[in-house]
């Protein structure tokens, strides 16, 4: 399997994606931002369509769209949850509309669109892997530096206010990192299902872990299992990798819920 360069690339990229998604996922869950993660993946699709039209790579198109939209969401929304959801809906509507427009304007075939939506293992080049690595390292460094403030602001927002940490800045930086994360991860998992890796491993991990740090390690482990096994099964069966990743992550989540039920019964 590893004699094929595209599988090497897929595993390299998949490993990076699993690690950053595991880390970011912990904060996505703590900040109640599953909906935002989902929306950003739809916006990512629109971005890829824009990239196609403008002659950029899908990854660069996604980066442009997701970063701009996440900054807009960060600026327009507030701590008020209901308003945040409305702002997210409005902005995602706008960007997805644009995506459909660019898809119609560009003359690429519809199979190109499906590979963006559902991900593609074959499509990842070594150059893509390099770009994804640089972006992943950037996400890792920023999350290391703001880990303490982000942890306080995400897990204890009321308490964080008394610590005078710049919560507005943290929100915006976090959203931009999320945008980068979505764009990178969509290359393999596809933009339609990237939110799986951003929500399910962390949601499952929270039932087994006792500290934020152990939740993060477990989330990374669950994401890695899904991506590695998914890629292998995809290679062996010739069925979509994304399908296997989705099923594996959902299964892990199911087990986590059962584990939690049993834990409270005793």
């Amino acid at each position, binding site marked *: 399997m590893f004699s094929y360069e595209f599988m090497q690339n897929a595993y390299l990229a998949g490993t990076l994606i699993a690690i950053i998604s595991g880390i970011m996922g912990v904060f996505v869950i703590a900040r109640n931002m599953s909906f935002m993660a989902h929306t950003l993946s739809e916006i990512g699709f629109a971005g890829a369509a824009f990239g196609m039209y403008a002659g950029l790579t899908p990854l660069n198109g996604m980066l442009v769209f997701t970063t701009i939209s996440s900054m807009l969401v960060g600026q327009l929304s507030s701590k008020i949850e209901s308003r945040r959801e409305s702002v997210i809906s409005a902005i995602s509507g706008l960007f997805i509309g644009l995506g459909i427009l660019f898809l119609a304007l560009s003359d690429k075939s519809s199979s190109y669109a499906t590979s963006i939506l559902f991900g593609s293992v074959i499509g990842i080049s070594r150059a893509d892997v390099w770009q994804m690595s640089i972006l992943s390292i950037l996400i890792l460094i920023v999350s290391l530096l703001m880990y303490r403030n982000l942890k306080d602001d995400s897990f204890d927002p009321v308490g964080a206010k008394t610590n005078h940490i710049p919560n507005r800045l943290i929100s915006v930086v976090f959203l931009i990192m999320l945008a980068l994360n979505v764009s990178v991860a969509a290359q393999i998992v596809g933009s339609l299902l990237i939110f799986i890796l951003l929500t399910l491993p962390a949601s499952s991990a*929270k039932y087994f872990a006792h*500290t934020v740090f152990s939740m993060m390690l477990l989330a990374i482990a669950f994401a890695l299992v899904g991506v590695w096994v998914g890629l292998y099964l995809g290679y062996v069966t010739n069925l979509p990798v994304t399908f296997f990743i989705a099923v594996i992550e959902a299964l892990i989540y199911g087990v986590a819920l059962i584990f939690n039920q049993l834990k409270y019964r005793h």
Partner: protein
Amino acid sequence: MKETLIKVQNLEVGYPNQKVFQNLSFEIHAGQFLAVIGENGIGKTTLIKTLLGQIKPLNGKIEIENHLKIGYVPQFRNIDIEYPLTIADFISLNFTGIKLPWLSKREKQKINEVLKQVNLFHLRNRPLGMVSGGEKQRAYLAQALIKNPELLILDESTASLDPKTKREVLEVVSKLNRELNITIIFISHDLNLVKEYPDSFLWLKRDEYLSGDINNLPDQLKGESHV
């Protein structure tokens, strides 16, 4: 004469179109244990937020001693009980800043120290979502103690607890006041507690206020258990 930590003069507090109260003057001295009492909606939390600088005073003056370290335990917390936060992990949340994620030896020692101060050391690895209300309140106290506050503001910390647990929490607060000389502002409705632990009171009422030594609590409050 004890050192003055906070001096409030002719303070007018509220929001642009809603004045909460005016002409409020009082002082807080080092080592004081002050109870702030008053009925719901009278503006106790608004006063605290003004002292903390979260709301601008409409008028008047607040002088706070230079570099005074203030710890604040908010009235409501919004922490999901499913979060994987042990008590020690929760307390470590207060070590904020642009620093590496892992805690230094000194920071770990500090966590153990505050855990012992609030009698929670034995529960340090217990998830916060799985401890009792009183233990949670003590964990909140411990978190505030991480930054070595000279003044600790407790915003109705005991409101949802049963009488016995309230006393447990107040015993800890009282010990912090006596042994570590931490000045306390304790906001409460519970006059039984107010008569027992604090040494002074500030009673906020519509259009007026009363303050003084706890032994001089107005007669109309002496027989009551709540305000």
